[in-house]
């Protein structure tokens, strides 16, 4: 296992980046629904009070108003916990943003079960599935603070709706300030031709740990940071499907509608291969520390190794 140095939570990196680019991009307006201290948008609000609006606990109003701001040339960033912003304002996103083709950015925190002790009402394990239903949306799930900074800056340059998934806990540092990312692409972190392990966001380090353990057994796993969920990086997937014996996906999301299901749909047509997905199987999270919950729901290095070995032994 690697010694992971914990960096900032991705939500904090988001707030800091907004603050950093607020001066350059005068069109940016930031909207929050009484969670600005958790999403760190309060940093922007302090420096740019005229471009920051706290909507109170009224997510639907916030999202529709973001659409209105976008019609007037603003670049609104909407933030809250993923479960509240997306689930409560799902239809407002559909009609006002997706169905009006407006340039609104959604950055939610508290995605996945790594939220921990707050329990299932504050944990979104369906955000990817829901956001993927909106035509034209780009979905990005950065793994650490450096990837988050890149994603926030890059999404401003992209004209169109974007969802960026961030998390609550401090994230293991995977990258550095010089790491280069490509918009709408993914990143192969480790090469290997035996199997492929795919993850995104907070759980990416579990994939890397599993890779190291597998190496001790002589198994070379390719590890891909699938930070762009949508559009699906088909080229990288096809390559992995052709060059390795199968794919293991680990994500803190429901199996139904998660990245694993999207990958399976694509590859079952273009290049069928063994795909095993680790995630929440028709259930919600609960209270506990992030790693207790990961253990309970099978998001562990051991489980990744088990799935890899199943793929290899089945040929």
């Amino acid at each position, binding site marked *: 296992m690697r010694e992971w140095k914990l960096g900032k939570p991705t939500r904090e990196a988001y707030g800091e980046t907004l603050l950093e680019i607020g001066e350059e991009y005068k069109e940016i*307006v930031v909207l929050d629904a009484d969670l600005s201290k958790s999403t760190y948008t309060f940093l922007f609000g302090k420096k740019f009070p*005229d*471009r920051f*609006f706290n*909507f*109170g606990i*009224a997510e*639907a*109003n*916030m*999202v*529709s*108003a*973001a*659409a*209105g*701001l*976008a*019609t*007037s*040339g*603003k670049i*609104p960033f909407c933030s809250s916990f993923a479960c509240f912003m997306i689930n409560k304002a799902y*239809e*407002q996103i*559909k*009609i*006002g943003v997706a*169905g*009006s*083709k*407006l340039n609104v950015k959604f950055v939610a925190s508290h995605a996945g079960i790594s939220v921990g002790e707050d329990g299932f009402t504050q944990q979104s394990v369906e955000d990817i599935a829901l956001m993927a239903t909106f035509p034209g949306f780009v979905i990005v799930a950065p793994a650490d603070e450096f990837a988050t900074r890149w994603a926030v800056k890059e999404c401003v340059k992209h004209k169109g709706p974007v969802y960026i998934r961030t998390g609550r806990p401090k994230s293991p540092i995977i990258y550095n300030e010089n790491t280069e990312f490509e918009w709408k692409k993914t990143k192969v972190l480790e090469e290997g031709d035996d199997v492929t392990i795919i993850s995104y966001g907070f759980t990416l380090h579990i994939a890397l740990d599993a890779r190291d353990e597998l190496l001790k057994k002589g198994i070379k796993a390719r590890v891909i940071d699938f930070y762009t969920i949508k559009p699906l990086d088909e080229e990288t997937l096809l390559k992995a499907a052709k060059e390795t014996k199968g794919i293991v996906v680990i994500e803190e999301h429901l199996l139904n509608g998660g990245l694993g299901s999207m990958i399976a749909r694509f590859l079952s047509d273009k290049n069928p291969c063994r795909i095993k997905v680790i995630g929440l199987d028709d259930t919600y999270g609960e209270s506990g520390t992030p790693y207790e919950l990961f253990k309970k729901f099978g998001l562990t290095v051991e489980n990744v190794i088990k799935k890899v070995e199943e793929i290899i032994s089945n040929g």
Partner: protein
Amino acid sequence: MQRITFSEIETLQKIAKEIRKDIIKMTGNAGSGHPGGSLSCVEILVSLFFKVMRHDPKNPTWSERDRFILSKGHGAPALYATLAQCGYIEREELLTLRKIGSRLQGHPDKRFLPLLEVSTGSLGQGLSVGVGVALAGKIDKKDYRVYVLIGDGESQEGQVWEAAMFSSFHKLDNLCAIMDYNKFQLDGRISEILDIEPVIKKWQSFGWEVFEVKDGHNFEEILWAFEEAKKIKHKPQIIIAHTIKGKGVSFMEGNNHFHGRAPNKEEEIRALKEISEDL
């Protein structure tokens, strides 16, 4: 505003009549749609597009334009017919309503008709969109006004009140809502399904300046309310306009049968005859 002249009112009435005929033809031709709630808001739309709002049909995206949002999106036929009268779209195009490939979708769809501010049709959202447009106006220090037409039944949506609370707190005096109070919703009388009364007190208590228009088909009354609303500072305004669902066609007036049902051929002919003859 100078007192409106009789001949000006006559002109507006003529336009309203053309729009009514178009609504009947469009929904009749489409075989579906919402004539009742379209006919009830004709005078409101004509007042806005021909008297109250600053806009330029030759330049639909003019940054200084007053904005209009049809939050009660099912009134789309009335909006399209009004836009045609203004010259934003060709009148011939109106008969493509609800047909495959048409820019005139069943409910306003910005993907097909980009001159719209936003797509509408799911009730309760338009006022919030108006909030965003009004905020942008304040940030940019522009003097455009934002008009949002909401339905009476629509006011049962909680989001309307989220927007109401926010607008007065932020003193959005560039935001003006109009409620087309035709007293019916799809399933029947509002007073029997979920009454919204006392609606004036509700808006007042949410910090809005309220204007009541007893006859929402009387141009003088409507225009008076719009002019008074423009004078209000530091508060959003709402005009509660009492209207008649299906207004202008005797067998449609107050007949909720025509909420979401188009006239058949025989009804269409009768309706057009009535509208033409009524002076």
